[in-house]
């Protein structure tokens, strides 16, 4: 019977055996379809991704195009608003909808790459520590402790002030902030896995350490890495916005949502939409990513666990 399940996993179409238990991919698909949070979250994320990729086609105006005769036009839901600028214009007469659309590029790009790079670095460090143990593990624990002790936001601020607020610099600096959680989790997962018989078997067959880590341990830690990555991506988006808000992130005139909030701040008492719109954009994107991450965690959890 276990043999038949394995067979069905290998090849769905030529399955000759009667299988009563759904295969793991089948089960995940079923769970995903009934998981409201996951569907909602991933829809919003896909929508944001679509807007980011096609913003030059979708945006009604050039986000850098200033027109001082049309500054601070109210959005369409205000009495004086028009459909020409549905979200109004900013203090320099730039179309706010277009700036918001282009802003999604910055958030998604920084969030995604910061989470991905820190995932690679952190998981590598964690798996090495967990697999080898002993002195190597002690050294890695020491690295993690040093990272945890440093006040991350202050270090990021100082590094940005030194290296400047380009998108690349921000991605690298944020990656440096986030690797530790991956390391902690993959380390403990690796410690649990390495005592299993199939690892011993792989070693007995002469597999190299690299092959064991990449081929046997990584696939088992992958679910958790993806879950952490989605949560860290959300945090990275918030921190990028915060750095840009403080003037130490993305530099004007590039539209970043955090920067838009900071630019709108001097007008917020009379034109609150200038801070509310970009603020809500960050809020909804982050909620959507978190919902997607929680969804992935529920969907990929081994059966019987909640």
């Amino acid at each position: 019977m276990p043999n038949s399940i394995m067979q069905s996993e290998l090849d769905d179409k030529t399955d000759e055996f009667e299988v009563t238990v759904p295969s793991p991919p089948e089960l995940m698909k079923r769970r995903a379809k009934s998981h409201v949070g996951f569907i909602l979250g991933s829809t919003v994320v896909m929508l944001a991704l679509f807007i980011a990729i096609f913003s030059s086609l979708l945006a009604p105006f050039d986000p850098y195009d200033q027109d001082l005769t049309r500054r601070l036009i109210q959005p369409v839901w205000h009495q004086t608003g028009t459909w020409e600028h549905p979200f109004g214009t900013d203090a320099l007469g730039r179309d706010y909808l277009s700036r918001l659309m282009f802003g999604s590029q910055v958030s998604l790009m920084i969030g995604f790459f910061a989470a991905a790079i820190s995932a690679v670095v952190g998981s590598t460090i964690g798996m090495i520590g967990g697999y080898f143990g002993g002195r190597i593990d002690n050294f890695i624990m020491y690295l993690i402790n040093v990272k945890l002790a440093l006040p991350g936001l202050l270090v990021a601020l100082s590094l940005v002030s030194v290296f400047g607020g380009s998108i690349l610099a921000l991605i690298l600096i944020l990656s440096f902030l986030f690797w530790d959680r991956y390391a902690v989790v993959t380390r403990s997962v690796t410690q649990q896995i390495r005592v299993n018989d199939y690892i011993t078997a792989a070693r007995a067959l002469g597999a190299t350490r690299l092959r064991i880590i990449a081929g046997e341990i990584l696939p088992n830690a992958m679910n958790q890495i993806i879950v952490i990555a989605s949560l860290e991506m959300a945090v990275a988006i918030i921190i990028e916005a915060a750095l840009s808000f403080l003037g130490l992130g993305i530099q004007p005139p590039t539209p970043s949502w955090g920067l838009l909030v900071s630019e709108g701040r001097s007008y917020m008492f009379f034109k609150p939409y200038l801070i509310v719109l970009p603020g809500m954009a960050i809020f909804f994107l982050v909620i959507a990513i978190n919902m997607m991450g929680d969804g992935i965690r529920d969907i990929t959890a081994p059966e019987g666990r909640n």
Partner: protein
Amino acid sequence: MARFLLHRLYISFLVAITVSVIAFSLLRLSGDLAAELAGEDATDKEIAVVAHQYGLDRPLYVQYFDWAKNAITGDLGRSLFTNEPVSEMIFERLGVTVKLACYSIALGLILAIPLGVLASTKPNTWIDRMSLGLAVFGQAIPNFFFALLLILLFGVQLRWLPISGNDTFAHFIMPTITLGIGVMPQFMRLTRTGMLDVLDTDFIRTARAKGLNPMRVLFKHALRNAILPIISLMAVVLGFLLGGTVIIESIFALNGVGFLAYESIMRQDFPVVQSIVFILSLSYILLTLCSDLINAQLDPRIRLG
């Protein structure tokens, strides 16, 4: 216990040394500081004089040891811009930041623990969903945006609260709400999962079977066992908040360490920045050391394992 303590102290010491090196090198990466101090149209000779005056012409490791030697005696150097002693600048402002961090943790706990306990007793009901919703909100809202919304509502529309300064307790209310909502989710999730685990155990079933007051079972018997990880988390969050108040302090013009750090970073005042990074790291190391020792004292498995 002695062995555990020694090992833990040894690690903390190593980490502290490393952190001091990192803090020291942070702003020195930025290139020629002497040129910046000397002003825009300074000649090479003037720059050299400035470099010599501040000791910047010596090799880096000499500068580091010099700084570390003085730091041990409490002398953290002088600010490059105001020429005040750095240690005074920091300790003057530490009170505001510590106050803000403690208020925020208190608010976070006041919200998180009852909600987490209630959510754990009634999983998948409306109260569970509501507290989860609050946690999702707290996690997703950028604190600078939330702070501005509070200012718009309580400062401008209703005119209930002052929007900048740190003179009275009222000045701390909005910053505390902003940060408290931000730290609440972690405490709540930890309380909820901890309680769910404990409520499943035999001794709770026994306590209930004896006919004890259900509230007493919940808050006395169960919560006491679920609270250990919360103590560790408190240390971590406190350490995080001491360095994480930068944004909120600068929005509300609270004159704390975070605001000082922000100003000093903006004007590349590295003696101040490195000292703040170092002091905050040290306090994190001490806090986690204490919480580990408390946990080891309470749970023999840790200190013997």
